[in-house]
């Protein structure tokens, strides 16, 4: 934001000033097209759009967050070129990176909102309990900030699981009444880029899509773009062959672990999680959690934290009876309990018959009692 002169002129001028060749820029656009799951010919369309686009203003709001998405975004792959994309949007307000502070910052934000047609990026969940006192900035609650910023915006982009679904702040018992951006914004298209954090590649690709097509990319039922969340981790996992072969890690550091076998039994949530980590990877494409031998923890799913814990168990546990119990313990309990109950019932029925037989005999002749007993016994033997 400081280098105003660098940001002026056409995109080609700016690229030139940054010392980036057009070839490199096109390569970058091909990468974006691939991330967006578009056919290669779209690389050109994206390049054209980025070259001619007017800079839309962008406001980045941080609420109940850890700034992890900001960190992730600032470390976008191919940073020099990504800077250009960053540059394509004019980040008018971002608490972590803006130079302005205090009233000056708020004033610049208000001016952007008044102009309208801006993009709002939301990081962190919004507390709603007790009048939203758990997160206030410049004397206003997070909710007020969000509602004001969304007014007249072109789109709201929720980055990270907290703004997408409430995330860790919304985990049970959700003390602050944390909610997602989508649940509090109306009248403006909202897209969710969950993840803990959201992958920078997916953020830039979403921005590029918006700049190229003037609209947000197509989403799934959870409001996530299909290009990044259309497939499960498990269906795009480099360890999948070991899953299919029934070869599983049983303990951290065991032989199977060293061989890179499947982490299913170690609680990997890849089978429950939609995200493109396996192909997009992290830290400039270096590696990703499963690649380094740790299971996926399902960070990009609604209800992450509560629904994905315990991280090292395959299935959730059931609360109750003061302790948390596994599905199999409950199940064996049901089976053994049923067997015990009906076993006891059988004994009861046997006793009931004996006593009935004995009672009948008593009512007639006492001497017949022995016979009645014998009759019953032989009856039982017959069956």
């Amino acid at each position, binding site marked *: 934001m400081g280098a105003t002169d660098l940001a002026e002129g056409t995109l080609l001028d700016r690229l030139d000033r940054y010392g980036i060749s057009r070839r490199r820029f096109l390569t970058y656009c091909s990468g974006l097209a691939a991330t967006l799951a578009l056919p290669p010919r779209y690389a050109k369309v994206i390049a054209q759009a980025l070259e001619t686009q007017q800079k839309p203003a962008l406001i980045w709001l941080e609420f109940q967050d850890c700034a992890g998405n900001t960190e992730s975004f600032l470390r976008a792959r191919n940073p020099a070129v990504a800077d250009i994309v960053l540059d394509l949007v004019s980040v008018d307000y971002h608490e972590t990176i803006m130079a302005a502070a205090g009233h000056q910052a708020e004033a610049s934000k208000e001016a952007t909102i008044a102009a309208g047609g801006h993009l709002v990026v939301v990081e962190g969940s919004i507390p709603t309990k007790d009048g939203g006192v758990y997160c206030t900035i410049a004397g206003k609650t997070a909710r007020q900030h969000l509602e004001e910023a969304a007014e007249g915006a072109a789109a709201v982009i929720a980055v990270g699981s907290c703004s997408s679904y409430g995330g860790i702040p919304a985990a049970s018992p959700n003390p602050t009444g944390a909610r997602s951006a989508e649940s509090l914004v109306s009248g403006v298209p909202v897209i969710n880029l969950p993840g803990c954090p959201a992958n920078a590649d997916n953020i830039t690709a979403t921005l590029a899509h918006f700049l190229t097509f003037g609209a947000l990319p197509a989403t*799934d*039922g959870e409001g996530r773009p299909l290009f990044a969340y*259309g497939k*499960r981790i498990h*269906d795009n996992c480099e360890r999948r062959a070991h*899953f*299919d*072969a*029934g*070869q*599983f890690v*049983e303990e951290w550091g065991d*032989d*199977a672990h060293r061989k890179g*076998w499947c982490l*299913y*039994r170690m609680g990997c*949530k890849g*089978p*429950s*999680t*939609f995200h493109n980590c396996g192909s997009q990877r992290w830290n400039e494409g270096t590696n990703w959690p499963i690649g380094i031998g740790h299971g996926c923890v*399902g960070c990009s*799913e*609604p*209800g992450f934290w509560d*629904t*994905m814990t315990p991280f090292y168990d*395959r*299935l*959730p546990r*059931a609360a109750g009876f003061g302790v948390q119990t596994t*599905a*199999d313990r*409950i*199940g*064996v309990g*049901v*089976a053994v*309990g*049923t*067997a015990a*109950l*009906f*076993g006891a*019932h*059988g004994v*009861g*029925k046997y006793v*009931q*018959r004996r006593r*009935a037989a004995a009672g*009948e005999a008593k009512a007639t002749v006492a001497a017949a009692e022995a016979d009645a007993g014998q009759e019953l016994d032989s009856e*039982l033997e017959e*069956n």
Partner: protein
Amino acid sequence: MTTDTDQAVGPAEPEEYVTVKVWDLPVRGIHWIIFGCVFVLSVTGFYIGNPAWATRGDTGFLMGNVLAIHRATAWIFIVMVIARIAWAFRGNEWSRWHHFIPVHKKRRGLARHTVEYYLFVRHDPPPVIGHNPIAGLTYTVLYLVFIAQIFTGLALMSLEEPGSWQDSVAGWVFNFWSIPGVRFFHHIVMWLVIGFVIHHVYSAVLMDHEEKSGVMSSIFGSHKRVPPGHK
């Protein structure tokens, strides 16, 4: 041994029993195919849930095959469950739906009798030819559990291919439950069904012994021997 029913049917000796063809072929066929399916689905499901065997060495395509068997069996299972529900509207008297859900007054009276019988209050089994009303209700619950198992199974299957027909049929399940929650449910139902089978075989043995009606062989060979006057 002082109730009305006892007076009416109690004195009948096994020799006077009449033979009734109770379970027609579809009922028996479906019963045993479902039994086979549940057996296969439980064994394969147990492995999917706890793949503890043969994790070392050359295991071929073990999990892939087990999942394929689970799915193939699931199709047969689904067809059989649908067939049995259809047959509840087409089959003979004792396979009809009103033997599963006691809507008629008479069936509800029999239900009371059955409960008293099970709770040791009386020792004469309820005078029925088909299922007693409590057994009928148990099977109704069982079928509801089966349907829940089918929907959660289809939902888990749909994860592999969002937008598939399984997704359209069962994707709504995830509006109520997270993906791991649905898996947990699908897993625990296996144990509920195992619990049912324990109870079920016990009841069949008990009734066979108490009624001497041949209920055990009836599920193989269709006929029951019942005292005259049973309905």
